[in-house]
């Protein structure tokens, strides 16, 4: 087989072109063919910030249910006062106050249990995975502690035990170890005195959220539910009067980052066809070059030998 420079370019550019050019077109393609829809029986939480009184009863309830020691943070050891979600805190009520003091809202921070989660997509070993009913669970036996979930999560939820030799990833798993066994709902919703946070099927919660918006038009920010579409949708939904971005909920398009990555890699890899085809092409080219090279070397050796004979 005679391979010339043009063939080489074809193979190489073909490969990169499949990757590069179509990756760009994939980026603008409208329909996401692999969009993940929420499971029929997906469960989650609905947190209505306008109903939350900031009593923080859900926090010790969460600690107890999950066997976590209280983080006394900046309270001089007096009471539970974590500054942030951390390896001891899976659930946290925060208060947002606008700089001018006129606007304020509580915010419940915990895992949003995304419909198509980045952490599950990135986790190399399926340690983070979708449980039954769409709960995002973590499996200690598979986790290698790479912490890619912490990089990938758009809400920065998974936390790591930085000061342990045997560190775990800590995040809300919707009390999956007790729900359906010893109790019918997670610890936080069970103790909430104002029902600011409730537990249920995602579809029911979404309907309830829209009912509240319809009953009180203009009451909630932009009359919308955060998590209905954001980042491909989340199973924990938020209602608030204050701009969601101010509560630390990033504005996101309807496509999940996981889906975007799948789309780009699918276009590049074509179900692993691209690497195989390029590999085959390269073997053909290099085989030719290799024969050529051996001939060159043999020729050079002969020349050297005759030179040596003359000397």
């Amino acid at each position, binding site marked *: 087989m005679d391979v010339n*420079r043009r063939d*080489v370019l074809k193979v*190489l550019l073909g490969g*990169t072109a499949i990757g*590069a050019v179509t*990756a*760009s077109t*994939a*980026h603008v393609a409208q329909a996401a063919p692999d969009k993940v829809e929420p499971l029929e029986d997906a469960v989650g939480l609905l947190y209505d910030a306008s109903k939350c009184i900031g009593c923080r009863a859900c926090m010790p309830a969460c600690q107890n249910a999950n066997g976590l020691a209280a983080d006394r943070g900046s309270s001089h050891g007096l009471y539970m006062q974590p500054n*942030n979600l*951390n390896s001891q805190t899976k659930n946290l009520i925060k208060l947002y106050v606008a700089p001018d003091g006129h606007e304020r809202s509580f915010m419940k921070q915990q895992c949003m249990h995304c419909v198509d989660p*980045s952490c599950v*997509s*990135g*986790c*190399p*070993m*399926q*340690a983070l995975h979708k449980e039954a009913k769409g709960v995002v669970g973590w499996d200690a*036996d*598979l*986790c*290698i*502690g790479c*912490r*890619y979930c*912490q*990089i*990938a999560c*758009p809400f*920065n939820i998974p*936390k*790591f*035990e*930085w*000061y342990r*030799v*045997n*560190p775990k990833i800590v995040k809300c798993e919707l009390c999956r170890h007790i729900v359906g066994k010893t109790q019918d709902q997670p610890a936080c919703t069970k103790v909430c005195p104002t029902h600011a946070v409730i537990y249920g099927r995602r579809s029911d919660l979404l309907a309830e959220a829209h009912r509240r918006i319809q009953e009180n038009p203009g009451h909630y920010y932009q009359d919308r539910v955060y998590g209905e579409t954001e980042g491909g949708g989340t199973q924990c939904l938020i209602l608030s009067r204050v701009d969601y971005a101010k509560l*630390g909920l*990033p504005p996101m398009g309807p496509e999940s*980052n*996981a889906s*975007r*990555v799948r789309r*780009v*890699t699918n276009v*590049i890899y074509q179900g692993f066809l691209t*690497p195989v085809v*390029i590999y085959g092409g*390269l*073997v053909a*080219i*290099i*085989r030719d*070059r*290799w024969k050529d090279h*051996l001939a*060159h*070397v043999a020729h050079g050796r002969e020349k050297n030998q005759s030179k040596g004979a003359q000397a």
Partner: protein
Amino acid sequence: MTDHWERCIRLKEPLRTKPFKIFVGLAGFAMLLGLLREVSGLGYVTGLNDGYAWGLFKNWNVTALTALGSGGYAVAVMAWIFNERKFHPIMRTAVLTSLVGYGTGMISLGFDVGRPWNFIHILNPKTWNHHSVLLEVAVCMTAYVILALNFENMPPFLERMYKSGDPQRSERALQIFHYMQKSFPFWIALAFVLPSMHQSSLGSLMFLAGERVHPLWQTARLPLLYLSMAYILGFACVLLVLVLSTYVWNLGWDAAILGRLAMVMSWLTLSWLVLQFVDLAYRGVFEMAFAFDRYSLVFLAETILLLVPALALQVEAVRSRPFRLFRLTLLLTIGGLLYRFTPTSIAFIPLGNYTYFPTVIEILMSVGFTALAVVIFLFTVKRFAILPASEGKIASEAAIRPFDTL
């Protein structure tokens, strides 16, 4: 005056020089600190936290420095695919820089993971998450080092074996070499496909982070930009190593090879910059580059560090002057490494009140891993025929014939 590099020679220089001992000390100390890290949590020895979960070990030693370790890949593409035969004498140097670059990157990764004992599951593909870009990087990099780089680095070792004086070992070396010659194209093709996959996937890694990477860097073209930067830095690394070796060990100056390397690197860099700016414009964030905030300044620094040397290296008179070539390539390397480092660190948005700066231990470990790469390189070039030299120099050495095909 310019020489013509013909073949690889073993340096007949003393190994235990003062700089060598310093590098050994740094590398050894890093390994001791590594032990300390293994018996304590990551939080005690590093500056990592819940906002910046990845630090020097991953972002610098793996994401940035393995690009520098792509020399074996980049030069091999020139030698084998584009059939530029003059690059064959520097192939051994190139693949050795790759082996030490990737090898120490993998060591760094080993110390970085929190639950390394669970690595055992990588042997069971059933537990793999096939959508995970990180899995692809991990499996692909391991395969590249074990299968391709080891194969490419074998000939110098076989030569030693052949010359051991023991007829049985010589025979064995010839047998292995014979097998290598037969299967050569299949391994070398692997050495092209695997790095293309994981160097682009290193870019996809940060694409998953979405809004958490500043828009100047976050793009669907991250895989392409990361991969092409690996080529550029691969050439740069081989250039730096060769120019430095030429200076220290007086190997002669092959202007044809070095000039061509510089030229290819320069053109690649210029095309890379065009691609990046077209992408910025396409995504409509062009003006962010000139906002003169923290991000914009870092971005402009990267651009200038890449653009100025790339333009200067277009001039023949600049390329042929050792010190100018070295300094400009060094600047370009700094710019390229900064680009590979930034999306994971400076442009990473921690979401919350977090700051990260590596601790002294972390820096010592990171530097020590690089020192280890230098130690292995120095040891190898003084024990095996790796570095290229001109015919005159070879004549004074007992050149080894049976393996000069690789």
